[in-house]
């Protein structure tokens, strides 16, 4: 993982300790503003497609950002993160269809299910290193996908959960109404991002980085590496499952594709696109990928070539994600400006 570290070292703007003290407050403020802007969008633009777009951004954004907790912060390259996306969608969908639970109850239960699944699978996976961790998570994902396909009476097999997801009104919120769903998705997104940001900035977040940088040394300052990896695996899985819940509400169903490896692949792609060294990178990547995907499928049926070329541009041209690039560029400019100031 030497390259990720090298990229990281060159780019990030280092905040002083004093600045960081107020960081939590600043995050809260940014989150509040972000939420306000998102909520006002449908009232400013009467575009239903924009509403759909933001809901999808919320689903994929939570998923991709949670993956970055693993990939970027902890150095755990998971190829199976999509299993939690699928698990979230299926658990929530099934709970709503089969039990008479209210939406908040089903949501909490879904989080619990993902946490338990993450605990069991993570306990096995996080022992392995690097590429083998990647493969074993991929194997688990495919295993879950196979189970979804095979367990037809419960999951509906390849046809997915059909018949729509019932959405009883709770606390005056009617998720059957697209605008309500939109606001709920935005709220989940903002709260989710805020929580993940807090995790990243907490002592635990620094532990993650220590484990990524030098797991051996970390264990000799008292960090139980296995437990830290497992904890972040479970947490990331829970956030990913929230993404799945939003997606299941958006399409009003759950499909085996949600648990297929391609979802994990897209998550990694989003991270590379947006950059893994900034917290907001995956979110930027999500917006980029969705715009790219939506535009490319509108333009041509050979969108594979377009997408491929764009990926190559990022991988071989920029050699880093967009946000990494922006941050570096900004840092360089600031350095230049400061040298100019000192010289005059």
């Amino acid at each position, binding site marked *: 993982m030497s390259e990720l570290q090298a990229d990281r070292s060159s780019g990030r703007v280092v905040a002083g300790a004093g600045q960081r003290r107020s960081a939590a407050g600043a995050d809260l403020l940014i989150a509040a503003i972000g939420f306000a*802007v998102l909520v006002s*969008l449908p009232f*400013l*633009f*009467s*575009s*239903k*497609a*924009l509403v*759909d*777009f933001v809901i*999808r951004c919320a689903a994929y954004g939570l998923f991709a950002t949670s993956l970055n907790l693993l990939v970027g912060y902890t150095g755990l390259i998971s190829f199976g993160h999509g299993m939690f996306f699928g698990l979230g969608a299926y658990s929530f969908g099934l709970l709503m269809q089969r039990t008479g639970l209210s939406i908040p109850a089903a949501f909490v239960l879904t989080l619990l299910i993902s946490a338990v699944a993450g605990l069991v699978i993570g306990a096995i996976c996080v022992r392995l290193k690097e590429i083998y961790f990647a493969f074993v998570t991929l194997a688990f994902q495919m295993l879950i996908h196979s189970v979804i*396909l095979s367990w*037809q009476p419960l999951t*509906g*097999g*390849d*046809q*997915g959960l*059909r*018949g*729509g997801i019932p959405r009883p009104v709770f606390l005056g919120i009617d998720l059957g109404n*697209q605008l309500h769903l939109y606001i709920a998705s935005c709220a989940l997104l903002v709260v989710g991002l805020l929580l993940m940001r807090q995790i990243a900035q907490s002592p635990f977040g620094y532990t993650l980085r220590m484990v990524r940088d030098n797991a051996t040394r970390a264990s000799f300052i008292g960090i139980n590496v296995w437990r830290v990896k497992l904890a972040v695996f479970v947490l990331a899985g829970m956030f990913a499952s929230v993404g799945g819940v939003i*997606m299941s509400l*958006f*399409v*009003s*169903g759950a*499909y*085996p*594709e*949600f648990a297929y490896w391609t979802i994990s692949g897209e998550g990694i792609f989003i991270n590379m696109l947006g950059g893994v060294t900034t917290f907001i990178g995956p979110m930027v990547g999500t*917006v*980029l990928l969705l*715009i790219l995907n*939506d*535009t490319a*499928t*509108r*333009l*041509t*049926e*050979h*969108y*594979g070539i377009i997408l491929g070329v764009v990926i190559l541009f990022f991988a071989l041209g920029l050699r880093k994600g967009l946000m990494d690039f922006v941050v570096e560029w900004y840092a360089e400019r600031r350095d230049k400006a400061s040298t100019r100031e000192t010289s005059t």
Partner: protein
Amino acid sequence: MTIESKTGESKMGINRRATLALMGAGAMTVAAPWVARAQAKAIKIGMPTILSGRVAQLGTSSRNGVMIEVEKLNAAGGLAGRPIEMVVRDSKGQPQEAARIARELVNTDGCEMIIDGEASSGSFAVQEVARDLGVLCVHTCSEASSLTADPKQRIPNAFRCARQGIHDSIAGGNYAAAIAKAKGLKKWATCSPDYAYGRDTTAEFVTYLKHFAPDVEIISETWPKLFQPDYTEVITRILQAKPQALYSALWGGDLTSFIDQANLYAMFTQMEVFAVNMADYTALTVVKNLPKGIHSGNRYIKTFPATAENAAWGDAYKAKYKEYPTNWSWQNATAIMLLNEAAKKAGSADGKKLAEVLPGLTVKCPFGADGTVTMRAEDHTIVGYAIGWGTTIPTEPYVPEVKAGDWKQIFELEAQWKKSKGYA
């Protein structure tokens, strides 16, 4: 207003430039391409379908089927006087993309109705969009019976214009039972793809085979995965069981792979084979060493029904697209014919009004068993289309004799089936 030749790409030019120019300029400006544009006089019909990946043929031949009829219709003045503009998008076979595209087609592109060219899981996702948006939706590719048969699935604004597994199975069961009795085929094996369509049609076929020939026994079942490249283990397993006859719901490339590989084991000399999806030009023209005498249901065959209209339609399609139509082509073409007839009856191209007149509507159609097909009112699905079984030969006309299925019998048994499923 010009008529889009293929996918409505020229229109997209403006949108593309706008979108590209605004990419990366922040969330506020990103919203701009979605700002609704003024409604043109043309009626836009959106079509999510699968244009990439292994079943790209599903989408391309569906689109061809639609376009050949749309062009005719536009030349004749359009849908209730309004020219049709098709907007076809690739869902890559992913249900969430199908749902997303369907929503976008309606919400952004201003499509007033949807022709859903998705395979079954995608069509269930599109059904939910139609339920949510209330837009007129015609499913043209999904053969999964529950889509329309199950009253929980049904909505007033969605229709299916495609053959159904249950119909095929009743006709096939009847046909196969006759041969089983004549040739004394008692031990049967099945080999179908392991997904909803494969499982359902196989179960239904077996039900009706046993209904008509009660002493038949299924001694082996194999369920290869959809798109499995290698069937060796499946073939040897079937051979182990030594059945007298084999039923398969494999289709497309999977079916041709299976045949090529089964040929190596001389499977077709050891048992009678009933492959419901064999008599489709995509498979018939591709298999190089087609064994003689495979029993198959009709998919699309220009010689059945043996009418001049059908033959002419098949030839016109081939002349235009340099290949024979597929099963999906006729289903999509029929959808346009139905919409046209409904628009004439309603005197309008408005989706709501069309949805009111479509139930029970009968339309003249080259693919009808009696020259017409009907959109059955009770469950919004077409009936009366040409359905039959015959045996294949390796050269044109591929299926020289097709024994037509009996729709009266199909209706009777279908009604019983619905009752047993709790649908009626």
